[in-house]
């Protein structure tokens, strides 16, 4: 099947044929795809097969492949090794593996293809991500003998993160399992089950043998039970058109062109949308409004430029813009975000782990500045897709990070615009590209809204009150003891002369939120209003206690991000459901079990425990493993049971945030446990000093400076500094 067959009859001239070919090319779409999957699943062989069967392997390449197939270390035992067509590096050919991504270009009468053959080894995941970042479609290979492996899942995660919406699962080496239909279906099912949360729009499973050619370019004579397309037929027809026709205009200024005093143009590539001469645009971040005078190209001025065009803009007004500025449509509702705090999914590429607090160079479009990871919100477990807590990201790990920037960045969420929502992080000492990131959103949403300038600010109000304002956010099921603890704490703080306020779930629903029900959407709005109210109270200089079930992580995160760094203290009152239900102080569990209340958290509505609460409290001494939900070692843990404390010690758990022993329990248990050598070097805090366990950062610093051995008075000394 020669793709570039000569069109037309013999009488036509070469230029007629060329014109016809160019016209035909215009109708042929382009598909950029990658092959990925675990090592030895046959990715390079598959591409070799596609090229070979499409008659795209040239004679001298074929000869050299045949010669290399017979070399002593050849992996196919002298049979022709199609992977040698793509594995271009010497080390790759020697080891029979792929190290770096190779790009191949081929076409069929229906489509042009750019294929990125990416490595399967986990240590070369960065090269896989490199290949995937500019693709529209992914072919994920699975060895039929091995099934879905961790690396298959990791690659599926990365495809999904990078925004690839459609994938084919090529179940390869079917010849080695006797073309077993049941096995193929089991693999396809397993993958579909795993990938459900990744949100692919289309997953097409194809049984094939790259080595033998079954179902690659032509239907297999060995699998009559399979009625779907061959891989090539699928690649030729799958619809990947995702271009949003009315996307807002974005134009990152790449270079200022000033050949002489009469010309000042801004060169760049249109990242999305389109622009016409005369259009009003805004230069971000300065916010200046200007009008497009000319769209300059070497082939003459254009009336209009659209996504992908590399042009030079001039403006009617005198204006000062420079590299790094983003020119956008003058429509406030589609304006890009401008923020110096962002939340982003990050894939870590470097052998040296990500360090929160270390400064990196961030490059986003043509913007570059200094970035610091302020918090790792969670890591993604690629096998289970669970969110797990962690302090750092190791090589090839993926996580959601809060990032603060030395100066504001102009961006869009990655989901809206991959060009203006993606970035890389560069180590400032080694110059290595250590991470790639996809921006989720800005953390200071207020940057989109004009602020009324106020003369008296939060710190002025706090200073007058002589305290550090903050939100103490208690979360967990009904009956877990949130309000009881919060009330005790407020009494205590009040006695200490602190200015406080309490927002209680039930009470707020009698007033501010009385129009809201208990659906997920209403719960989200419920929390949003409470979080906003809490923010106002913090702004007023108060210590705010919030006692709300607040079952969803994202809303608690939203509440956290409304206030400043260190002003949000999340307290997880980790009481097991059985205990809450046994207590049932308001009789609500009974009603829920009886079906009288719908959407009751813990019964028929889910609760997402915090990943990094500043403090986890256990109010139960019946729970067998009270610490099992303390994900973060930065959390404090509290318990009233000496049994639990001893268990903690045996488990070698470290809770540098402190151990809280409520007055209601046996106040001496902590000391007993320390004395018994079960726990060493952890401060044990009495009830009155609970607050001391809350300011985790300060408290941890204090711990590091003090050789603390269960001194009950320890936190008292630091109380003043904290609140």
């Amino acid at each position, binding site marked *: 099947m020669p793709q*570039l067959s000569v069109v037309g009859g013999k009488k036509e001239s070469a230029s007629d044929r060329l014109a016809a070919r*160019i016209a035909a090319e215009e109708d042929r779409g382009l598909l950029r795809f990658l092959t990925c999957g675990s090592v030895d699943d046959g990715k390079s062989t598959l591409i070799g097969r596609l090229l070979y069967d499409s008659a795209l392997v040239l004679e001298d390449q074929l000869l050299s492949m045949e010669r*290399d197939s017979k070399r002593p270390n050849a992996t196919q035992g002298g049979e022709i090794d199609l992977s040698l067509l793509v594995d271009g590096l010497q080390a790759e050919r020697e080891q029979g593996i792929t190290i770096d991504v190779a790009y191949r270009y081929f076409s069929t009468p229906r489509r042009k293809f750019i294929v990125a053959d990416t490595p399967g080894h986990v240590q070369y995941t960065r090269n896989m*991500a490199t290949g995937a970042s500019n693709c529209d479609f992914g072919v994920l290979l699975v060895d039929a003998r091995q099934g879905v492996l961790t690396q298959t899942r990791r690659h599926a995660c990365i495809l999904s993160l990078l925004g690839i919406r459609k994938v084919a699962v090529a179940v390869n080496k079917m010849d080695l399992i006797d073309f077993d239909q049941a096995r193929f279906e089991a693999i396809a099912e397993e993958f579909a089950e795993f990938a459900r949360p990744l949100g692919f729009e289309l997953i097409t499973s194809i049984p094939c043998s790259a080595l033998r050619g079954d179902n690659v370019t032509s239907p297999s004579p060995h699998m009559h039970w399979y009625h779907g397309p061959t891989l090539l037929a699928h690649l030729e027809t799958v619809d990947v058109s995702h271009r949003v026709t009315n996307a807002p205009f974005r134009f990152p200024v790449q270079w200022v062109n000033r050949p002489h005093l009469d010309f000042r143009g801004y060169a760049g590539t249109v990242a999305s949308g389109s622009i016409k001469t005369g259009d009003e645009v805004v230069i971000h971040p300065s916010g200046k409004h200007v009008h497009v005078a000319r769209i300059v190209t070497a082939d003459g001025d254009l009336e209009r430029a659209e996504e992908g065009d590399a042009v030079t803009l001039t403006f009617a007004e005198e204006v000062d813009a420079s590299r790094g500025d983003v020119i956008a449509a003058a429509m406030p509702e589609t304006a890009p975000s401008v923020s110096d705090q962002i939340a982003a999914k990050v894939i870590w590429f470097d052998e040296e782990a990500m360090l929160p607090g270390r400064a990196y160079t961030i490059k986003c479009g043509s913007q570059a500045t200094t970035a610091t990871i302020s918090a790792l919100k969670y890591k993604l477990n690629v096998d289970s897709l669970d969110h797990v807590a962690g302090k750092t990201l190791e090589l090839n790990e993926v996580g959601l990070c809060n990032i603060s920037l030395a100066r504001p960045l102009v961006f869009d969420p990655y989901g809206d615009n991959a060009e203006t929502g*993606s970035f890389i992080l560069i180590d400032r000492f080694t*110059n290595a*590209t250590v991470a790639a990131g996809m921006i989720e959103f800005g953390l200071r949403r207020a940057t989109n809204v004009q602020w009324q300038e106020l003369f008296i600010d939060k710190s002025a109000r706090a200073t007058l009150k002589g305290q550090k304002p903050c939100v103490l956010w208690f979360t967990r099921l009904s009956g877990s003891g949130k309000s009881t603890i919060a009330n005790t704490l407020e009494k205590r703080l009040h006695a200490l002369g602190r200015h406080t306020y309490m927002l209680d779930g039930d009470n707020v629903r009698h007033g501010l939120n009385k129009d809201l029900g208990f659906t997920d959407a209403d719960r989200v709005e419920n929390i949003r209003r409470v979080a906003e109210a809490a923010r106002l109270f913090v702004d007023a200089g108060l210590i705010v206690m919030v006692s709300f079930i607040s079952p969803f992580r994202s809303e608690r995160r939203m509440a956290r991000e409304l206030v400043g760094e260190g002003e949000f203290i999340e307290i997880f009152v980790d009481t097991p459901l059985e205990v809450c239900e046994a207590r049932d102080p308001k009789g609500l569990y009974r009603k829920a079990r009886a079906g009288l209340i719908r959407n009751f958290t813990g019964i028929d509505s889910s609760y997402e425990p915090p990943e990094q609460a500043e403090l986890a409290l256990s109010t139960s001494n019946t729970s067998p493993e009270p610490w099992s939900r303390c994900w973060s070692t930065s959390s404090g843990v509290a318990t009233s049971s000496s049994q639990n404390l001893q268990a903690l010690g045996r488990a070698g758990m470290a809770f540098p945030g402190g151990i809280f022993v409520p007055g209601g329990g046996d106040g001496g248990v902590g000391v007993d446990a320390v004395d018994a050598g079960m726990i060493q070097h952890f401060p044990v805090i009495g009830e009155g000093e609970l607050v001391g366990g809350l300011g985790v950062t300060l408290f941890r610093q204090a711990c590091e400076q003090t050789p603390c051995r269960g001194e009950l008075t320890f936190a008292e000394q630091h109380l003043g500094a904290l609140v």
Partner: protein
Amino acid sequence: MKHRLSSYLRQLEAESIHIMREVVAEFRNPVMLYSIGKDSAVMLHLAMKAFYPAKPPFPLLHVDTTWKFREMIAFRDREAQRLGVDLMVHTNEQGKREGMSPITHGSALYTDVMKTEALKQAFAAHGFDAAFGGARRDEEKSRAKERVFSFRNAAHNWDPKRQRPELWHLANTKVKPGESMRVFPLSNWTELDVWTYIYLENIPVVPLYFADKRPVVERGGTLIMVDDERLPLDPGETPEMAKVRFRTLGCYPLTGAIRSDATTVPEIIDELIASRHSERQGRVIDHDQTGSMEKKKQEGYF
């Protein structure tokens, strides 16, 4: 006469322009390696577009091995003058004094001294921190693996196992003093794309690409053109006048001609499509060792 580009070629053109602008914005002292061939012709044409109405804000550098076809040198000087660009020519003078020749010293050593060494000398002399090259990924297997922004250490070495990840259109352009970047704006172009673009944009190329009667001798299945009297003829060897052209241009004793009747770009494209040989096959230096292009690149060859 200019023709309308297909939307795919427009994409390729815009991508290349974007890469060039990125280099000019991020590097202190870039240079464009100009090898006079068709890829260089396209690259230079794109540079003229990228910075319009300004001229390309960097010089062109031709590493002259002294064994280029005479027609190439004439074309080089003509083009530089026509476009009004700054052309620098560098030759490894020591190699020249020692009479380095592909014939007596073998292609491997000759290429190392007259190309790779010469290039390093030019970098050192002018303090370049980035150099554009016209290499394409479809040319050769190891080139298919190379990044658009390809980092070189202070010894100009390429480490294929530790290439910087290159996601989306974001390039890490950081280099320390002495280190440099090789940048390949035509990475994603194929030979067919290049010729189609040359045709549609009406870009001048060296006449050696078109078939004509030329004096050649056949050696080991390769047709070598007798471009000047320096090519020693074996006893009994007489140059034959044959209608030949070149798919690729380098040093004449190392570049094989093909028999052809193609005298226009569309005819070249017809021939290309019908051809069963890959483009670099006429290059002797690619075949002198297994994995030889990768080795040369690791040592600093473009």
